[in-house]
C-alpha cells in the first residue's frame, strides 16, 4: 500500500509549506460575512516528527478549517489559518511562537505535536496571556501542577496511556496468558524526551499499583543509531510483554534489531506517536506487526458512529471522506482524527461562542468560552466528551473527559481492544506464526 504518495501536486504543496513557513491559508467556501478570524496552526511539517504523525495532524486540522468555513464559519466570518512549521526543533517552535504572537498578533495558536515543544512553549503562552490549544502533545508534565490559565488540551495526557496499557494487560493476563497479573514481567523502553518519560512514568506507576514486576525500564534517544544493546538486555531479562514509547526511526530500528537479535515476547504494546502510523509500520514489517497493540485516542474509523451523539457520526463520515480523498490512506492514523477533532472542538465549541458573545476573539474571551465547554461523552468524532479542568485543579486546562484506548493491529487496520466495553477481545499472546512470538 502506498500511504503517502508523492505526486506533482503534493510536492508543490509540500514545497509551499516548507519554503514559505508563514503560509497564510485563505479560507474557501461560503463564509463571506466579515473579517476573517485568524488562528495559528503550528505543527512539524519537516524533520523527524513530520513522519511520526505531525503531518496527518496538520492535514486533519486543515480539513476541519475547510469544513468549518464551508459551513459558514462564525456567522459568515471565515477562519484563516496562519501556519507555522516548527521543523521538529524546540528552538524553531519557540521562534515561530514569537512570530505568531508578535508579528502576526494572533490570540490563539493550535496544534503542537511534540511534548518536547509543548513544555517550553506553554509557559511562554501563559506569560503572554495568549491561548495555546494543544491538539497532540500528550505529556502530563505540560499541565500538571502548573495552574495555567491560557493553555488547554482537549486530547489525552500521558498518564492515561500508562493506565490503558497496564489495565489491558492486567485484565487479560489470567485468561489469555495463564498468568496472574502480578506474575507478568514487563519491559519498558522509551524515548528520553518529555513524551517518553511521561508515559513511562505512568506505566511504572500503574504497574506498581497492580504489583506487576518491571524487569527493565530504560530510556534511549530517539535518534540513537543503534539499539542492539537494549535488545540484548531485554533478552536477558525475558519480559513477557514489552511496552515501547517512541517516535518513528527508533521504533523501526528497535523492531528490526529485536528480530535479528532474537528477542521474543508475548505481546508488544506501543504508546502513540510512531506506533500510530500503522500504514508505515505495515509497509516496513508486513505481517510481523500483526496483533501488536498501540495506546492512543481512538481514530474515528475505529468507533461505531451510530453510538455517537446525534450528528457526530455524519461529521466523522464527512471528515473521513474528505481526508481519504485528499491523502489516499487506507487507515488514516489517529493523528489525522486528532488534528480534525481537536481543531473542530476549538472552532465549534470555543471560537464560535466566544466571537458571538464578545464580537471578537481575544484570548480572554476564548479562555472563558473554553472553560464553559461541556460536551457529553460521544459528542466528538473520537468518542470522548469535553470538559476542561478549571483553574486551581492540578491538571487545569486538561480535558477531563478525554479517553485513550488500546488498539490492536491486523493486516494494516486497527481495532479497539480496551476498554472491553468499547472493543473486541484482544489476541494475546502473539500467535506462534508471528516472527516475534515467544515460543
Amino acid at each position, binding site marked *: 500500500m502506498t500511504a503517502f504518495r*508523492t505526486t506533482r501536486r503534493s510536492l508543490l504543496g509540500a514545497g509551499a509549506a*516548507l519554503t514559505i513557513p508563514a503560509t497564510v491559508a485563505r479560507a474557501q467556501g461560503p463564509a463571506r460575512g466579515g473579517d476573517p478570524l485568524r488562528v495559528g496552526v503550528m505543527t512539524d511539517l519537516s524533520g523527524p516528527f513530520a513522519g511520526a504523525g505531525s503531518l496527518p495532524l496538520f492535514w486533519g486540522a486543515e480539513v476541519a478549517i475547510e469544513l468549518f468555513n464551508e459551513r459558514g464559519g462564525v456567522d459568515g466570518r471565515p477562519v484563516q489559518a496562519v501556519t507555522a512549521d516548527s521543523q521538529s526543533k524546540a528552538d524553531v517552535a519557540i521562534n515561530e511562537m514569537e512570530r505568531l504572537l508578535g508579528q502576526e498578533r494572533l490570540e490563539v495558536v493550535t496544534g503542537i505535536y511534540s511534548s518536547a515543544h509543548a513544555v517550553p512553549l506553554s509557559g511562554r503562552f501563559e506569560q503572554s496571556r495568549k491561548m495555546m490549544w494543544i491538539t497532540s502533545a500528550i505529556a502530563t508534565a505540560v499541565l500538571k501542577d502548573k495552574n495555567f490559565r491560557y493553555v488547554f488540551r482537549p486530547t489525552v495526557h500521558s498518564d492515561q496511556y500508562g493506565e490503558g496499557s497496564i489495565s489491558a494487560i492486567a485484565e487479560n493476563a489470567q485468561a489469555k496468558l495463564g498468568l496472574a497479573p502480578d506474575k507478568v514481567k514487563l519491559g519498558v523502553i522509551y524515548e528520553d524526551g518529555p513524551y517518553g518519560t511521561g508515559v513511562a512514568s505512568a506505566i511504572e506507576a500503574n504497574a506498581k499499583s497492580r504489583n506487576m514486576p518491571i524487569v527493565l525500564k*530504560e530510556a534511549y*534517544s530517539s535518534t540513537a543509531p543503534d539499539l542492539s*544493546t537494549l535488545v540484548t538486555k531485554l*533478552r536477558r531479562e525475558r519480559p513477557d510483554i514489552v511496552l515501547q514509547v517512541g517516535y518513528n526511526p527508533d521504533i523501526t530500528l528497535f523492531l528490526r534489531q529485536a528480530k535479528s*537479535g*532474537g528477542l521474543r515476547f508475548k505481546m508488544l504494546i506501543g504508546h502513540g506517536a510512531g506506533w500510530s502510523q500503522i500504514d*508505515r509500520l505495515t509497509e*516496513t514489517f508486513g505481517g510481523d506487526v500483526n496483533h501488536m497493540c498501540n495506546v492512543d485516542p481512538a481514530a474515528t474509523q475505529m468507533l461505531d458512529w451510530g453510538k455517537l451523539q446525534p450528528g457526530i457520526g455524519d461529521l466523522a463520515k464527512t471528515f473521513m471522506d474528505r481526508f481519504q480523498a485528499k491523502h489516499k490512506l487506507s487507515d488514516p492514523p489517529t493523528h489525522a482524527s486528532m488534528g480534525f477533532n481537536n481543531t473542530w472542538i476549538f472552532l465549534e465549541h470555543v471560537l464560535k461562542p466566544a466571537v458571538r458573545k464578545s464580537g471578537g476573539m481575544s484570548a480572554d474571551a476564548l479562555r472563558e468560552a473554553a472553560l464553559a465547554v461541556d460536551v457529553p461523552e460521544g459528542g466528538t468524532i473520537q468518542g470522548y466528551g469535553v470538559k476542561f479542568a478549571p483553574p486551581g485543579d492540578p491538571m487545569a486546562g486538561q480535558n477531563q473527559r478525554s479517553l485513550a484506548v488500546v488498539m490492536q493491529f491486523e493486516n494494516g487496520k486497527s481495532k479497539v481492544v480496551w476498554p472491553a466495553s468499547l472493543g473486541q477481545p484482544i489476541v494475546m499472546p502473539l500467535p506462534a506464526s508471528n516472527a516475534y512470538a515467544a515460543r
Partner: protein
Amino acid sequence: MDSFLLEALVNGILLGGVFALPALGLNLVFGVVDVVWLCYAELVMVGMYAVWFLYTQAGWPLWMAFAACLPVVSLLGLLLHLLVVRPLLASPPINQVLATGGVLFLLQGAMTLIFRTDFRSLGVDMPPMEVGEIFVSGTKLAAFCAALLGAALLWAFLKFTYVGTAIRAIARDREVMPLMGVDPQRIYLIASAVGGALAGLAACLLVVQLDVHPFVGLSFGPITFMICVMGGLGNMLGGFLAAFLMGIIVSVGGFWGSTEFSYVVAFGFFIVTIFARPRGLFAR
C-alpha cells in the same frame, strides 16, 4: 564471560565497522583538502535514498542499486568540491565550514521536497546467526565485512597506486608536494571523489539497517565527527580504530549502564581524549 556481555561486545565491534567507513571518508577529505565536510552524513543520506529509489521504485536488483550508489555519491562529492569547496580554499576555515553546513541544510531540504518526510525502508532482512546464546545480526555482520573490505581496498589504493601515494604525500605536506610536480587541484578532486564513494559505500551499509528519511544523518553524523576528532582529524588509521573503540564503548557502556549512560561515557571519554591528546588518540 557472561554470554550477554559477549554479545554486547560483538555488537560494539560490528557497530564500529559501520562508523568506520564514514570516518575514513571524512578523514581522507580533511587530510588531503584540509576542509571539513560538515555535510558528510547528508551525502550518505542521499546515497541511501538512491539505493532505496533504485531498489524499491525502479525495481533494480539490490546489488545493482548498491553498485550505482557509489558513483552517484562520488559524483556528488566531486560537485561539492568543485562548486562549494574549491572557490573557498583560500578563505578562512570558518567560511568553509559554514558553506558545507549550508550544503547540509540544502540536501536535507531537497530530499524533503522530493521524498517528503516519510520513513522509507528497503524491507531487506538477513537471518541472524545464533552461536550458543549469542545472536549476531546477519545484516550487521554483512555490513561489517563490507566495511572491512572497503577499508582494505582504500588502504591498497593509497599504498600501491601512484595517485594514492600522491594523496598521502599531499596529506603529509600540502606546501612542498606541488614543488615536486604533484598537481594539488587534481589530487583534491580525486580525494573528493573517493571520499564521496566511501560515503556511498557507507550508505549501502546503513540503508539495510536504518530507515531513510531526510534527517537520518542526525543518527550517525555527530558521532562520526567525534570519532574523526578522537582518532586525529585527517588521520585515517586513527579514525578507523577510534570507530571501533567508540562502538565498543557505546555498546558495552549501554550493557553495564543504560543506553543513555553509554553516550555519556562515550562523550566523556571524547572530552578527556581531546584534553589529554589534542591531536587525537592515535596521533604520532
